[in-house]
């Protein structure tokens, strides 16, 4: 509470200070006002009207165009986020109380975030959408209008949050210098702490910006299939599945086995797990493709070196019902275990596996994990729905790289990562060239670096192609 009060009074002082010093406050006060609310933190829920009344420029605020955000926030002596990032100030560890280092770190993060958000594209797109939104006949097609205004809203939200963040940085720098000027130790410390806090949250935002795809926040299914090569491959497939299970566990995701076809001797032929939790798809989609293992096979009595493959597919579980594929009951064929006998009271069986085939597409889903047919049917339907959704996503966005491949589409040539246990030890991602020399930790689920590297490199590629 104390610090919040301090921040409020500090902001007020800053405001009056700026008024006093700046001959023409118009071009800067506006954005400063915008960030006032964010600066005040949780208590800063001052209605926009009050803000604008205070600043006496209400007309600018009611405008929905990007004009209000085009202003580049600037410190009293003309520093901008971009110029800070360009200054090459040394970035020291977080514990060091050096405002330049904090500011440079935050500015770097903002630069990355903008890059990942495809900033230039976003601004352009928002302008285009704003033009469409102004059309008087827009709402003649409510579905289209809804989509446009939703997209516009989302993009504006992104722009706003980045701008606010930039603004905040500039504010803190100004405040810190002001505090030094007036020998206000308390305020200086407060500002320094705020800068350090920003640095931490900038790191988080950086990560979140990696996951800005449409379905990234969804839960997902992860499917693993063994390649040719018998038991050795099936064992590898099981190792890969275990790797994802421990990875998901580290993230605190909930894991459910949906389907598992065990190998005859060891391992799995194929398995599907459901990974429930925020951004499960966003991360896991980085794993789609073929994973290759080289080792001395424990299943080979001759102790020879083997290479085996496992294919991984990741399917988002869409939350938004409107974008889902509509399944007709009449298109489904539901296959159950049948004892073949007279059934009913004659038979006692605990076999409850269900297979559902979507006849028009030939896509099917099996579930045997639950102990009742009813529940297996529900689970299999969920898998089928997601597979069909995935098909729908692919159909709707052919040119969009967002689409992940299904197991059927993954060609065995599409290797993404190599795990070598012999003659040397290494895991190397063939897409990013990121590698580590400790395969055990990777197989125990320590995948985040691989995933993050891939996600940032794929965004870089997208940037280049834009």
């Amino acid at each position, binding site marked *: 509470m104390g610090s919040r009060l301090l921040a409020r009074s500090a902001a007020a002082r800053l405001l009056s200070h700026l008024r006093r010093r700046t001959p023409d406050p118009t071009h800067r006060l506006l954005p400063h006002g915008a960030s006032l609310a964010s600066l005040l933190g949780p208590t800063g829920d001052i209605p926009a009207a009050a803000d604008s009344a205070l600043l006496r420029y209400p007309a600018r605020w009611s405008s929905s165009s990007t004009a209000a955000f085009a202003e580049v926030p600037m410190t009293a002596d003309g520093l901008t986020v971009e110029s800070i990032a360009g200054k090459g100030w040394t970035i020291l560890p977080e514990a060091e109380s050096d405002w330049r280092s904090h500011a440079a770190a935050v500015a770097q993060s903002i630069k990355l975030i903008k890059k990942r958000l495809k900033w230039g594209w976003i601004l352009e797109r928002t302008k285009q959408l704003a033009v469409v939104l102004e059309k008087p006949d827009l709402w003649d097609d409510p579905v289209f209008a809804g989509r446009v205004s939703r997209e516009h809203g989302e993009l504006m939200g992104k722009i706003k949050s980045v701008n606010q963040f930039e603004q905040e940085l500039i504010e803190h720098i100004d405040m810190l210098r002001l505090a030094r000027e007036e020998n206000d130790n308390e305020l200086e410390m407060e500002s320094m702490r705020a800068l350090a806090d920003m640095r931490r949250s900038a790191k988080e935002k950086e990560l979140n910006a990696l996951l800005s795809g449409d379905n990234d926040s969804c839960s997902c299914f992860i499917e693993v299939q063994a390649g040719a090569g018998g038991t050795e491959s099936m064992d590898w497939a099981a190792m890969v599945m275990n790797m994802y299970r421990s990875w998901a566990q580290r993230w605190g995701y909930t894991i459910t086995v949906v389907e598992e076809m065990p190998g005859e001797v060891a391992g799995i032929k194929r398995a599907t797990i459901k990974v429930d939790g925020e951004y499960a798809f966003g991360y896991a989609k980085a794993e789609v493709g073929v994973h290759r293992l080289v080792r001395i096979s424990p299943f080979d009595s001759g102790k020879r070196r083997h290479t085996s493959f496992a294919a991984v597919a990741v399917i988002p579980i869409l939350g938004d019902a409107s974008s889902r594929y509509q399944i007709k009951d009449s298109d489904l064929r539901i296959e159950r275990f049948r004892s073949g006998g007279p059934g009913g009271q004659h038979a006692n*069986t605990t076999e409850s596996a269900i297979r559902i085939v979507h006849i028009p597409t030939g896509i099917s889903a099996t579930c045997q994990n639950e102990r*009742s047919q009813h529940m297996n049917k529900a689970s299999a339907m969920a898998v089928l729905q997601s597979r069909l959704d995935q098909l729908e996503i692919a159909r709707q966005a052919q040119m969009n790289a967002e689409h992940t491949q299904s197991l059927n589409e993954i060609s065995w040539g599409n290797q993404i990562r190599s795990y070598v246990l012999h003659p040397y030890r290494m895991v190397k991602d063939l897409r990013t060239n990121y590698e580590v020399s400790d395969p055990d930790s990777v197989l125990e689920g320590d995948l985040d670096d691989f995933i993050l590297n891939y996600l940032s490199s794929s965004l870089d590629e997208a940037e280049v192609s834009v």
Partner: protein
Amino acid sequence: MATLSLSSRPLTFLRPNRTKPPLHRLLRHKPLASSSASALTPPTPRADPSPTPDPDPTPLFLRSASHPVPAAALASFRRRAAALVPPSAPHLHRHLRWLLVDAAADPSSDPALLRAPLDDLEAMWTRHVRERRPFQYVVGNEHWRDLVVAVREGVLIPRPETEAVVDMIRKVEGFADGWWADLGTGSGAIAVAVARELGHEGRVFAVDVSEVAVEVATLNVQRYGVQGKVEIRHGSWFEPLEDVKGKLMGVISNPPYIPTDDLPGLQPEVGWHEPKLALDGGKEGLEHLLHLCEGLSSVLKPGGFFVFETNGNKQSEFLVDLISTKWNSSFHNVEAVLDFAEIKRFVTGYRR
């Protein structure tokens, strides 16, 4: 109340009768490890058909997890238990996995807290593998629809075919606020599943002549908190329903329908262990079904619905034919409905 008395039993009695299966029985069934271990092979005649009564009537999965067992001991039990099962019987490996899920509060903790002493678990597993005691009686439940239905010796284990009954009656107009009767409720599975979908006014009268069934159904009704919707009545078929005659929206029944002559040939899990009372349909298997058809018109209100499960094509066709000719003035839209194996498993129709 019934729940309380049931669950307090293991604590008061401490199971003085806990014994391992007699040695002669173990020896006699040992050859089962060969191909005859499949659940679907014809039964070998058994000298002693009466099952050993379970000393503790509380279903295993509902007992308190109060028996600490070191993880190593549990692991070695798992190995011993798996060794009893031939690789050609994947269902038994599945059962072993589920047994551990149901018998332990958290099988991966060390020590694991079990709901029965390890010796008891071992004896239960042996009886399951060697004596073909149904797995559902071992763990005390059957996963049916989205329910975990408590079962024990003396009540029929709900069958997956019967799951469809609930979907059928849910489509009946006026379902949610109607009064329904489940005749021969057994474990109460149908009654509970229906009750969970009913509206404010809806009721289920669950009738059974067996006292064990009444006890188990009461437990299941309480476990799912549908006491307000399900009224359990002890008695035979329509007898306890005098006061609701002509007021029922529908009648559901899965009566005993296996012809008496077929009983000796049943799968051991069924023939040796499940109650004859719930299986034996008399000559042709139609005794109870005919009795139900006759009483139907007096309990259903006009427009009321009925669904009976039957032995299959022959019985269903016979009943459809009978009802739509003999009682044509009372019923309409009488038809046989297929189960998931394409067998005419159900007869349904409406009261005029």
